């Protein structure tokens, strides 16, 4: 589904990713862990097409298409979804209008007719149940005044609405209390299918108790230095990152 080869990227002239290789197939869940500053969030931003980052070399092929040459909206409409670590607030844009534009953006991309207002509202009601999101949240402006937990729930709600084939969760667990973590993680799990894949970026084992990964990759200094199964997360939880840093120092 997504094949990344030797990906290098920099921000403000500073090289952050230094040769990422990753192969993600439908139905798989990959976790990316690593110490602060190793490039985890950069990887997600580069895949989503954030213009602040520059790809200096490498390739990423997404469902047979060259991902890196696509506009951010086209990547999204091809089925790439990024759950942001810090979802932005957009005062003045209602959740309803925002989601309607997103859902119909995708339909337009596929050459489909836009959803009618009633079908759209029906879809919203249905998907809201998955993430136990409050009605009054969707009647407000996008993320405006939402708590940390509400913002993350809202990310998963949007994911439910857009039904992406690859879901990248950038530190979705940060800033969540235990109940919110459970709701968010359950939402992700409920939406999992054999046709979609999940990339979980996290610092902690805790989230991986809910979203069980098939592979865990350790990112350090812009490279994946180690790949293992879920046991690797337990080992990290116990031993920290120092032994990795020691082993792979430049």
């Amino acid at each position, binding site marked *: 589904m997504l094949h990344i080869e030797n990906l290098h990227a920099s921000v403000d002239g500073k090289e952050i990713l230094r040769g990422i290789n990753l192969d993600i197939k439908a139905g798989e869940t990959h976790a990316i862990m690593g110490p602060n500053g190793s490039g985890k969030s950069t990887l997600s931003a580069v895949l989503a097409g954030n213009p602040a980052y520059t790809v200096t070399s490498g390739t990423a092929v997404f469902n047979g298409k060259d991902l890196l040459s696509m506009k951010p909206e086209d990547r999204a*409409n091809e089925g790439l979804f990024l759950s942001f670590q810090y979802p932005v607030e*957009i005062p*003045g844009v209602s959740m*309803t209008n925002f989601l309607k*534009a997103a859902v119909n*953006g995708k339909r337009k991309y596929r050459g489909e007719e836009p959803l009618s207002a009633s079908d759209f509202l029906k879809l919203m009601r249905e998907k809201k149940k998955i993430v136990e999101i409050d009605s009054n949240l969707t009647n407000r402006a996008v993320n405006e005044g939402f708590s940390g937990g509400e913002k993350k729930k809202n990310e998963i709600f949007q994911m439910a609405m857009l039904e992406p084939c690859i879901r990248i969760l950038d530190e979705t667990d940060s800033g969540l209390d235990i109940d919110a973590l459970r709701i968010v993680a359950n939402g992700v799990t409920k939406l999992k299918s054999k046709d979609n894949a999940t990339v979980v970026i996290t610092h902690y084992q805790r989230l991986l108790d809910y979203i069980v990964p098939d592979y865990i990759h350790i990112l350090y200094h812009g490279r994946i230095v180690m790949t293992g199964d879920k046991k690797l997360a337990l080992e990290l939880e116990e031993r920290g990152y120092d032994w990795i840093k020691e082993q792979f120092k430049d």
Partner: protein
Amino acid sequence: MTEGAPRGEYYLYFDLAKALSVTTEASTAKVVLNGSACEQSAVSPDFTDIDNRPADTLFLQKLAASAVATYADVELREGRNELSISADEADSPSSLHVARLFIHNSATASHSELVVRINARNPLLLETVILADIDKKTDVIMIQADKSSLLLTTTNVVSRRNSRLTFNLVNLSPSCNRNEVTASLVGENASVSLGGLYSAVKDCKVDNVTTVRHLVPNCESQQLFKGIADDNGNISFSGLIVVKPNAQKTTASQTNRHCISDKSAKAYSKPQLEIYADDVKCSHGATTGQIDESQLFYMQQRGIDESEARKLLTAAFLSEVADKFPMRDVRDEVLSLITGMDNDINEEV
């Protein structure tokens, strides 16, 4: 970005004189109130020297009918009123039309709402006097429809004792506009709220000049003007609040926010306060900014293409003004003008 003074008062008039042939025929501007043509009136109030007159007194002066102006006495009934102004002369599309309006609640109307729609393919000079009379409530919104080419509005608001007035201007069509609004608070406990919502694209220009004059104590005024400029567009706001020496306990605020979308666009802002009383609460703020890139990226990541995302963000920026419109249906109408989207789905879901 705030630089220099707004391109001044003379600029547009200069353009006007050069570009237009002013007809000597009677103006064919049509003024229609609530479905029927307005009674033509030769009476127009004169407030040119109001500072030297006793407060709370109005003088109406008969003006000689000018050859080129359409006069209308716009007497508002209770509740909603609709006024349309059109100047559409296919034969001589550049001739200037002049309409003069005198807007006021009828004697029996305690709260009147007026939606003015301007649809002028010909250049139009609209001179309006709004009388906010004693104990009356008046809400006026002036919307320029997309056919307009050049629109110059001069609005004089006179607020008497215990009156409540809101006056909002909407300029979203690709044209050149200049709006001058002067509000004089001449009776105690009057309140005036002025709003402006405007955009200038493709070499268009929107100038706003406001003067709010507090002449007596215990009055309140608010101003909120927000505009966007894109693609060589040019917007300006020059606002003055004057608080006369005896206008103690005045509360006055003025806010101007501009958003420019590209380097060719220009925005000017000139907030001014002139305060001669010592027990007042006055504030002003002016900012000029750009569309937030992180918001833009967030929307694109959800599959909304860039131009659509910009439209939504622009509408969000301008919606603060529309949100204050006392008439909700007009608010929704203006919001959908900006976004090209229906807002009818913002119901409880």
